[in-house]
């Protein structure tokens, strides 16, 4: 079973993402912000990281940069799921090493489809 690290500072978003991904057969670990995700990623392996952008302590782009500096996450798909939709932010995400940019709100079927495309 693939394991996904889902990061969002909104409790309702974490629940919606977990519900969708667990129903699709994934194992899901939650993190409340980038720092929490970084600590969890240091202790376990994940097949994909799905992260929000705007969060306290560490944002999604900051998390992506840190993960990409870590050998075990060098090739792990990282998707940023955020309300942000500006080209400038997308380019920053791309430059940080993100695999894709998803704008909220997400459609459950589409999210599962995209994850299926990029997960290893």
């Amino acid at each position, binding site marked *: 079973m693939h394991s996904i690290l889902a990061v969002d500072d*909104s409790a309702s978003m974490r629940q*919606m993402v977990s*519900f969708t991904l667990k129903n699709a057969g994934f194992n899901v670990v939650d993190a409340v912000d980038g720092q929490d995700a970084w600590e969890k990623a240091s202790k376990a392996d994940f097949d994909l990281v799905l992260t929000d952008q705007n969060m306290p302590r560490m944002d999604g782009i900051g998390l992506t940069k840190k993960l990409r500096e870590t050998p075990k996450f060098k090739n792990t798909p990282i998707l940023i799921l955020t*309300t942000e939709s500006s080209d400038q932010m997308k380019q920053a995400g791309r430059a940080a090493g993100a695999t894709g940019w*998803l*704008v*909220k709100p997400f459609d459950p*079927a*589409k999210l599962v489809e995209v994850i299926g495309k990029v997960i290893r």
Partner: protein
Amino acid sequence: MQLQDTSAPPPGSALPIWAAVELQDHLLVAGNDLDRLQRLLSDASEALLAHFYGANQALQPLLRDGAKDAGDGAAHAGSATAASHPQALQQALAHLAGAITAMQFQDMASQLVAHTGQRLRSCADRIARDTFADDEDEAVVEAPPLRPNPVTQDEMDAGSVELF
């Protein structure tokens, strides 16, 4: 006793004191109302999520029974098993899945409200500093948001997907 002329702006301020007081009061009330809106949204979201999970859990045994009945070939005429109503059950599940997109409103609305609240508090603080403070260095002014509001959506249609 000499009374202060409140119709004239204090030195260095463009607003008369009474107008600044009134404006600051409106901004603070609006900020407090936004805080209350934030709590209402959060409470509504929690209740919706609880009902959402409740409905989903209630449907799961029907799904399992339906699969079992279909496997046993036991969907008798007249019995109200899930196997006898597979379409209704699938429709109910599709409705629940469809609700997930709309139920993300709390996160988006919360960010929008927080951003706007910060802007209002910054304006109120600045009016206070410019109109009332004797010493600008001592006045604490909340900084305005550095970036435009991150939430630009005005409807709950699913957002775009871009793979790099």
